[in-house]
């Protein structure tokens, strides 16, 4: 009999037939093991594909509904700044200039551009419905910036109403009956005419980034929410990082191993998993009711988010410090450094990439939170920019939530648009964390 070449086969004085049988069984078992390994790998690939498919669906649905929010329909009007309407007294009194009826001027300008009868009240009302409700503010700002233009005709881009915008973007079916469409046939004809003449165009939506909350979708923006989120992130950065790092350094380098430090460790790990709304309740009780801080202020939001982020930062920092090999400390101590010097000159700098990664991940988590803000009054309609962390403001995810619950069609695309902006911010932060880790991470 030939010498068997199959690895793992049993040499022995068995008869040829029996040995063949054994070898076949071994061959089979090996094939089985390879197949099992392939299947095992496939499960992993399938899991990743499954996740990616959902991610693709999510991105597709957000991007396909959201991209239109970055442009907004506007009319180009030649507005005649009628002195008898704006400044009848001729005093250029700022209060009079503020309260003048600029809507009327805009309507007249649009009616002229569309060839509508300015004397017909019904026509004028229908013309007015094509314009945003905030059109007066846009013209007023032009006049206040340049009072010498009163009495002249100036070209201004003003926002069209939400309905017009929906029609132009195809979010409202133009073939529906007028009563259902809420845009009359006359208005539709005007819109087509204006679009053909280039008077009505879709322009880049700067208002989305600079405006505050508004009940009109066309003038609503995330400006106030962005500033509120920025104030909160600054508060978190200023408080959570020093507190978290100090706590982690003590626990990792100094604390004796006893019942109390075990208790602290268990509690920190528990806190990291507490539902975030609980931190909101705590914030309401301590910062608002006890410390007397104002409601809806971003400082309170920042403090609440600090409490929420602290455990994440402490855990990440402890892990990073724990990963610095003892030889570094021993070498420092060996050449005569004090323990504090060993930590502040060697251990913490070496652990820095890990600490920063943990901090950025904690911040990114805090940036996307709404639940803890509900209790402290930050889920709110805020129109004006906050001037300090003490003034009322809202946050980016809150703005998204508020828009998602609004009835007007124009808010649907804005919800998705603001989500895109939030996602972009989060991707940037997480990418930064990865780059930091790649660049500075040291392995021993």
């Amino acid at each position: 009999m030939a010498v068997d070449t199959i690895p793992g086969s049993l040499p022995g004085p068995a008869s040829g037939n029996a040995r063949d049988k054994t070898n076949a069984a071994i061959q089979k078992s090996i094939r089985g093991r390879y197949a099992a390994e392939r299947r095992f790998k496939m499960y992993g690939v399938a899991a990743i594909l499954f996740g990616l498919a959902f991610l693709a669906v999510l991105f597709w649905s957000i991007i396909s509904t959201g991209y239109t929010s970055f442009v907004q329909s506007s009319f180009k009007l030649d507005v005649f700044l009628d002195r008898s309407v704006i400044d009848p007294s001729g005093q250029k009194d700022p209060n009079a200039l503020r309260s003048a009826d600029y809507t009327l001027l805009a309507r007249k300008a649009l009616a002229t551009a569309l060839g509508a009868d300015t004397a017909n009240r019904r026509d004028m009302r229908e013309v007015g419905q094509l314009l945003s409700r905030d059109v007066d503010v846009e013209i007023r700002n032009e006049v206040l910036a340049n009072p010498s233009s009163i009495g002249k005709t100036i070209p201004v881009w003003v926002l069209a109403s939400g309905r017009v915008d929906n029609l132009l973007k195809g979010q409202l079916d133009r073939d529906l009956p007028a009563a259902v469409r809420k845009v009359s046939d006359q208005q539709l004809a005007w819109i087509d005419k204006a679009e053909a003449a280039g008077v009505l165009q879709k322009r880049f939506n700067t208002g989305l980034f600079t405006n505050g909350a508004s009940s009109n979708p066309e003038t609503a923006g995330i400006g106030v929410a962005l500033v509120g989120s920025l104030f909160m992130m600054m508060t978190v950065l200023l408080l959570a990082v020093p507190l978290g790092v100090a706590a982690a350094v003590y626990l990792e380098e100094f604390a004796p191993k006893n019942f109390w430090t075990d208790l602290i460790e268990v509690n920190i790990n528990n806190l990291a998993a507490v539902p975030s709304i609980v931190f909101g309740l705590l914030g309401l009780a301590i910062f608002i009711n006890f410390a007397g801080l104002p409601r809806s202020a971003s400082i309170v939001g920042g403090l609440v988010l600090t409490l929420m982020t602290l455990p994440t930062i402490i855990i990440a920092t402890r892990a990073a410090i724990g990963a610095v090999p003892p030889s570094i400390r021993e070498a420092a101590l060996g050449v005569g450094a004090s323990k504090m010097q060993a930590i502040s000159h060697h251990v913490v700098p070496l652990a820095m990439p890990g600490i920063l990664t943990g901090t950025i991940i904690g911040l990114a988590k805090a940036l996307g939170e709404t639940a803890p803000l509900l209790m402290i009054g930050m889920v709110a309609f805020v129109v004006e920019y906050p001037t300090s962390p003490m003034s009322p403001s809202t946050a980016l995810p809150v703005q998204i939530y508020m828009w998602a619950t609004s009835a007007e069609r124009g808010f649907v695309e804005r919800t998705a648009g603001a989500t895109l902006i939030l996602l972009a911010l989060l991707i940037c932060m997480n990418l930064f964390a990865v780059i930091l880790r790649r660049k500075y991470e040291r392995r021993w």
Partner: protein
Amino acid sequence: MYGIYGPRYHLQDQEISVSNKILASTAAVAVLGSLAFAAPAVARDQIQIAGSSTVLPYANIVAEQFGKTFNNFKTPIVESGGSSAGLKQFCQGLGEGTIDIANASRKIKEGEIAECAKNGVKEIVEVQFGYDGIVFAVDSKSDDWAIEPKDIYLALAAEVPKDGALVANPYKTWKEVNDKLPDWPIAAYIPGEKHGTREVFEEKVMHGGCKAVGADKLFAAKAEGDDAAKKKAGDKACVQVRKDGAAVDIDGDYTETLARITSNPKGVGVFGLSFFENNTDKLKVATISGIAPSVETISSGEYPVSRPLQFYVKKAHIGVIPGLKEFVEFFASDRMIGADGPLAEYGLVPSPDAERTKLQEDVKAAKSM
């Protein structure tokens, strides 16, 4: 790759005596931090409003217009959260840390008034600024729907009368309930328990339907106690909704109900009139007892399912919080809540002229409840 949770090395056995320096500085940072934020609160110059998500869009419109019109006052802050949560905050007490106005899509309850009084909020001004219709709507591509409270009761109640006895709801399709309705499996998206709208739905639709089919008497007969207790038990049993999945509670907003209808075009949803008015291209409204809901039929009282919308103002805050009096008067003015105002354009059913005039007088005098 170790990542941030890499291998750990400890110096436990070589621990030198614990330095208290870092502990001390940690404590110092903590103390400094809390001191810095315990500074006395600055005087509030912005009105704070919280409450009903139904009233929220109206309050937003008025707040925005108020900020635009009054140069010397800031735009009020309007929080969302629901009628009950808003009134709870409202009744927490007086002072700058508490809200000035609570929006509510239902009337304030006796218990809430007592709670308010206990915490010092003794004088409350009620401003009932208009009405909201509650409509049943289906997908815009379906046929016209004409229903009656009785149909809704039979389709959605937990127990219905059959041959003079109460049985667990056996109906599977709308056609079984009423021959004129389509042969759709019953799937209704109704406001969840935390919504003020649910109460109106129960009171005006379920209870009405319950009476119409005579189920209230059967329920009352089954209950124990004297007549009053029996009636109460009957009323309570009337508004019990079936729990077998045919009636779905929506705890989110109307946008969620709309999403449900979009994904199940054979579903029926409950909406506010203003929400429907903003989504006429996606929804078709059902008539109730032959009446189509509109501003006209609701203000005349012909359409049966509507409710008043109101907000409550702390009288003690008027004159303390800048602009509060002006804001309330501005809200109650014809320019806002009149038939041609922006709120009516959004979908508010304006109060009759006489009611509005009286409201404006009461608001001017800050008449409390």
